[in-house]
């Protein structure tokens, strides 16, 4: 029986790195919803997003020993594992095949690139809707679709340096939007 109901972040990290299963169960109960929200921003299909979430926690368990608090908060670390897993899924053959029935732009535009805010967007993606469209496309391609700056530069025919500065300025705007 687990009497303790809350852990500080330091305690949690310590116990997780000791491979304490109660702490891991607590981690799941407290963070799975927030992380699923992150995955969902990239993979809208609920069933696939849940599969990805399952892998995210397996990865967290496998990699927890390498987590270094000086490089970022525990949630930030997990957020990046979640985002990477979602983007891996987005780029997997299975996911691509499943999406083939859906209409994609014929003009060669990058599949899924946002052209406007969608009504059902949530979380960061919804905040993204408040950006100007040229910045929105850049953040969508880099954060939500995992394209490198080089790939974006080539796809949109914008110089690499411009891609980088525009993405940074977009992220600063996003920050002011969520940091109230």
């Amino acid at each position, binding site marked *: 029986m687990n009497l303790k109901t809350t852990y500080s972040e330091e305690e949690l990290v310590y116990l997780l790195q000791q491979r304490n299963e109660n702490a891991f169960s607590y981690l799941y109960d407290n963070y799975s919803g927030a992380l699923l929200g992150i995955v969902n921003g990239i993979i809208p299909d609920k069933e696939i997003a849940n599969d990805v979430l399952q892998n995210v926690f397996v990865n967290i368990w496998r990699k927890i020993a390498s987590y270094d608090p000086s490089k970022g*908060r525990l949630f930030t670390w997990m957020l990046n594992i979640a985002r990477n897993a979602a983007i891996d899924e987005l*780029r997997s053959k299975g996911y691509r095949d499943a999406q083939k029935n859906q209409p994609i732009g014929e003009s*060669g535009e990058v599949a899924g690139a946002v052209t406007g805010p969608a009504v059902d967007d949530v979380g*960061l993606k919804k905040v993204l809707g408040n950006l100007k469209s040229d910045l929105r496309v850049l953040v969508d391609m880099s*954060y939500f679709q995992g394209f490198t700056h080089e790939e974006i530069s080539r796809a949109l025919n914008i110089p690499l340096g411009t891609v980088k500065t525009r993405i940074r300025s*977009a992220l600063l705007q996003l920050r002011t939007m969520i940091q109230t």
Partner: protein
Amino acid sequence: MNTQEYIQSGILESYVLGLASDEERREVEDMCARYPEILQSRLDFEKALEEQAFANAVQPAPNVKANMLALIANETEAPSITAKEEAPVKKMYWLRYAAAACAILLAGSVYYNIVLSDRNKALRKEYDDSVTALNNIKEDIQVLQQNNNVKMAALNGTPASPQSFTTVYWDTTSHDVYLLINNLPKPASDKQYQLWAFLDGKPVDMGLIEITDKPLQLYKCNKAQNAQGFAITLEKRGREDVSVPGGDVMVVSKL
């Protein structure tokens, strides 16, 4: 050091969201270690992001936790196979031996299946990785082919290397030259490929080619937009004058 300028550059946000390059990551880590106000700004953003994620949490499906815990339990516990067999009739020793043999065979089969399944998973991952890499290249090539300023030339193998085949794309406006290595054998360790452009009938050095796992490589050459053709030669590694070709021509485009 103007820390405010650094904080306002957007690099911290890029770092936290996983969009920074390795070099940028090292830089941010270094800056955060040296300047408390930079670290504080990073942490503030991380907290805001976390709060934002919690405000937009999505309830997971009820079976995810159990499935995930089962997967983890499988990883930590080694598979144990115990075979306890009692012969039903005392004097039928052969049955004991047969049962023992069956148990051993079963254990062997289970073990072999685990090995095969692991190998299968590894192959599956390799396959998926290759498909992803291939799709990325296909996308890159699509982008190139859809750009009207980009010209394409197929470089076919010569009698010296009939199986070789590469493709050059060059952007007549940006000077970018992309070399797609469709098929080029790995050279001996003392040899190296070199790319040439033909200008007014003369070969011009475009650069040495390293065969890496990236089949699509980018070269910059400000003369390439007027190129009439391209070729690749196999040269001695480390030769002094790389401005004139010395080795065999392996692939060449029609001029």
